[in-house]
């Protein structure tokens, strides 16, 4: 059997397994190993079993020999949602990255946002994550985020993800603010039919985000491809988030709004971008979509 052709899925792995698969062998050193801290008492107060890592794995590792600080949210535990301990681990790792003057922070985001069971702590923790990410960026340290898990990046984690210097997405990944189910519940099925999976992905999915420059890279759901994409970013130069950069971002946002606001399906925009046979985009591989965007 040709090993190279067999996909090694990122999506199907647990957070810890994703880290171990992507980084150099034997290089991962987990910080706050299971049972080094107590399981969340906020969850036990609600009769919910916690997890030893409260749904996020943090530590240091190497990628092609380059030392990095790395975090991976566990989408299968409480929807990857941010509670007090979970949030503190992320904030701690970001501050440690600055202290250690790391080469890069790698972040596998897989989260619906605030953990409702600890709503206030979760919201404040996400604000602290946002402050810390900006500090990391302004210390000249790149934040390379991968979104390719079961939960994608929604809510406060959707906002935080966009504070990264680079976002790498797979087709399976989703990136947005409000979940389609919430929009449907409040605004009705016409506003967003959350059961129309194809539509959900045309609005929030990796291919759409890549085509609209909301994220910088689109790759297959494959460990080797994801690792390569991260390695490429490790060498890239990242500028500061200064006035000049923010003015540029402002311009991009205003331009995007003028051009596309009012559309409600990615397909409409891809068509107007001049992509031929835009309805075929969902069928294409990540590599093919990248070629479509280039040409």
């Amino acid at each position, binding site marked *: 059997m040709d090993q190279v052709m067999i996909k090694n899925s990122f999506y199907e792995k*647990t*957070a*810890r397994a994703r880290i171990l698969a992507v980084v150099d062998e034997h290089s991962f050193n987990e910080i706050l*190993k*299971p*049972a080094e801290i107590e*399981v969340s008492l906020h969850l*036990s107060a609600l*009769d*919910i*079993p*916690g*997890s*030893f890592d409260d749904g996020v794995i943090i530590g240091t590792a190497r990628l092609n020999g380059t030392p990095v600080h790395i975090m991976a949210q*566990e989408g*299968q*535990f409480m929807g990857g949602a941010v509670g007090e301990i979970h949030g503190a681990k992320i904030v701690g790792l970001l501050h440690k990255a600055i202290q250690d003057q790391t080469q890069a922070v790698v972040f596998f985001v897989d989260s619906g946002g605030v953990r409702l069971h600890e709503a206030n702590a979760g919201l404040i923790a996400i604000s602290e994550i946002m402050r810390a990410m900006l500090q990391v960026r302004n210390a000249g340290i790149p934040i390379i985020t991968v979104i390719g898990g079961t939960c994608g990046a929604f809510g406060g984690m959707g906002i935080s993800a966009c504070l990264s210097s680079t976002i790498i997405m797979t087709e399976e990944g989703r990136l947005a603010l409000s979940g389609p189910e919430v929009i449907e519940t409040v605004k009705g099925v016409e506003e967003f039919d959350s059961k129309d999976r194809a539509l959900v992905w045309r609005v929030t999915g990796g291919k759409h985000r890549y085509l609209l420059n909301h994220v910088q890279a689109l790759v297959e759901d494959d460990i080797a491809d994801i690792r390569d994409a991260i390695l490429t970013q490790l060498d890239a130069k990242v500028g500061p988030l200064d006035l000049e950069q923010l003015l540029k971002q402002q311009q991009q946002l205003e331009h995007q709004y003028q051009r596309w606001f009012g559309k409600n399906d990615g397909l409409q925009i891809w068509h107007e971008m001049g992509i031929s046979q835009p309805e075929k985009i969902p069928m294409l591989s990540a590599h093919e979509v990248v070629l479509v965007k280039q040409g």
Partner: protein
Amino acid sequence: MEKLKFELQSAPLSAQQAAVICGVVGSGNLEVLVSQHDQADICQIEVTTSAVGFQHVWQSVLNEFAQRHAVAGLKFQLNDMGATPAVVNLRLSQAISMFKGV
């Protein structure tokens, strides 16, 4: 939610190893943390589970596990979100394989 504690007789495992963890606390799933403890003749298993009223099922599954594998001297900590006995067995076996470095 229930917290259960079991102390089981088993054949001893002599491996000197750092703690290992496997599984995930998702619906129908569980995570298992295995570490060494200082009672070489006993296997200790602590279970935190979302399901209530299945102590006898846990007892039976864990007894059988401790008979099948040499696990005295080890402590197992389980966080369970409603896994079936089959899945529990799978994770326990995975955990012990990882611990032995197999």
